[in-house]
C-alpha cells in the first residue's frame, strides 16, 4: 500500500491546516505525482490543486513533494518515494488559498517589478530587431523559465522578505533583459536593483538551482547581476545596446 499525506486546508471549514492520510494500492507502473493526485481526487473530490498542461510547460502544478519543490506532472513517483510514503504540501512561504493552491500575488508582484519586457524606444525596423547568433546565445538558460515559483518558494530570503527580495525567478528574468542586446534600459534596470534587498539578499545557497524543474541556474544569473552592479553603470561587462561589449 502507498501511504500518502496531503496538506489540507479549507478556510471556510478548517480552523487550522492539517495533514490528511490516504492509502491506495501501489500502482503497477511508475506514474507521475499529478496522476497520483488525480487518483486521490476520484475518491475525495474536495482535494484541490492546480494543473493545466500536465507536461511541465505551464508551471501551474508546482508543489512541495517529500520536502522538495517540483512540478507534480513531471515528477515520477519512483523519484520521490521514501519507502512507501509520500508527503505533499503546497509551495512554502506563500499564503494558502485552499489545500495545495497558493496565492501567487507576491511572486507576480516581484516579477512585475523587474519590468519583464523589452525596452527599446528606437523606431522599430520593418521586420524585427535582429541579433547576432552569439548575442542570441546569451539568452539561453534564461528565457526558458515557466514561472512555476518552485525556485523562489524554496529560497529562505524570499520566505522572510517576499516584498523586498525580488526572488530567483524574477532575477533570472531581470538578467534575461540585462543580457539582451536589444534592450536599452540597462542603467535604469540596474538602478531598480541597487538597494540592499532586491538582489543582495541572495546569499547563494542555491536552493533555487536544486528546485528548478527546468534545470535552469538562477544563482548564476544573480551572480551576473551582482557583478554588473559592483562594476557600476557603463562598465565593461554591461553589454552595449548595439550588441558589442562596451
Amino acid at each position, binding site marked *: 500500500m502507498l501511504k500518502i499525506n496531503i496538506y489540507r486546508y479549507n478556510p471556510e471549514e478548517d480552523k487550522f491546516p492539517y495533514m490528511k492520510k490516504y492509502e491506495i494500492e501501489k500502482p503497477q507502473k511508475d506514474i507521475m505525482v499529478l496522476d497520483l493526485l488525480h487518483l486521490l481526487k476520484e475518491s475525495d473530490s474536495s482535494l484541490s490543486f492546480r494543473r493545466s498542461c500536465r507536461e511541465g510547460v505551464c508551471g501551474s502544478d508546482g508543489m512541495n513533494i517529500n520536502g522538495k519543490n517540483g512540478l507534480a506532472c513531471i515528477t515520477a513517483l519512483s523519484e520521490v518515494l521514501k519507502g512507501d510514503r509520500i508527503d505533499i504540501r503546497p509551495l512554502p512561504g506563500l499564503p494558502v488559498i485552499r489545500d495545495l493552491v497558493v496565492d501567487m500575488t507576491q511572486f507576480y508582484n516581484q516579477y512585475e517589478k523587474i519590468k519583464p519586457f523589452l525596452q527599446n524606444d528606437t523606431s522599430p525596423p520593418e521586420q524585427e530587431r535582429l541579433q547576432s547568433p552569439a548575442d542570441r546565445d546569451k539568452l539561453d538558460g534564461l528565457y526558458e523559465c515557466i514561472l512555476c515559483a518552485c525556485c523562489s518558494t524554496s529560497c529562505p530570503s524570499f520566505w*522572510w522578505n517576499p516584498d523586498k527580495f525580488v526572488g530567483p525567478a524574477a532575477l533570472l528574468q531581470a538578467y534575461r533583459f540585462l543580457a539582451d542586446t536589444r534592450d536599452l534600459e540597462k542603467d535604469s534596470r540596474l538602478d531598480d536593483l*541597487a538597494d*540592499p534587498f*532586491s538582489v*543582495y539578499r541572495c546569499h547563494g545557497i542555491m536552493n533555487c538551482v536544486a528546485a528548478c524543474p527546468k534545470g535552469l541556474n538562477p544563482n548564476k544569473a544573480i551572480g551576473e547581476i551582482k557583478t554588473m*552592479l*559592483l562594476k557600476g553603470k557603463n562598465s565593461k561587462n554591461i553589454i552595449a545596446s548595439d550588441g558589442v561589449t562596451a
Partner: protein
Amino acid sequence: MGLICNWNFHGDVYMKGSTIWHLQRWSSIFILAYVVYVVSFIISFSPILYSDWMIFVSSYIFKIATSIVFISILVHAFLGLWTIGTDYLTPRTLGFLNLALSRIADTSRLLYNIFFTVLGLFLYLFLLFLIWI
C-alpha cells in the same frame, strides 16, 4: 554620511547593496590580514617570551592596526547582525510564531539594532582604553 548610508526609524541601514557587499568583503580581508600579522609574529618568535610579546603589543604598528581592524570587525559584525534582524525580526517572520509578536516586531528590531550598536561602541572604547592607555 547621508550620501553613503541612511538609517530609518527602526535602526535599519539603507546603503546600496554593492556598498554593503564591499564593506563585508574588505572588512574580512582586513581581519584576515591582521590574523596573518599576529600569527606570523607568534610563529616567528616561538617559543614566545613575555618580553617579546610586550614589545610587540606596545608597538605603534600593532596599536594602529588593532584599532583599525577592530572597526572592521564591528562593521562586519553589525552588517551580519542587521541582516539577521531584517530576516527574523519582522512583522511577517514573527507573525508566523504569534500575531502579538508581529505587532512589536519593528520595535524589537529597533532595540536589537540599538543594543548591538551600543555594545559595539562600548567594546571599541574598551579596546582603545586597553591598548592605548
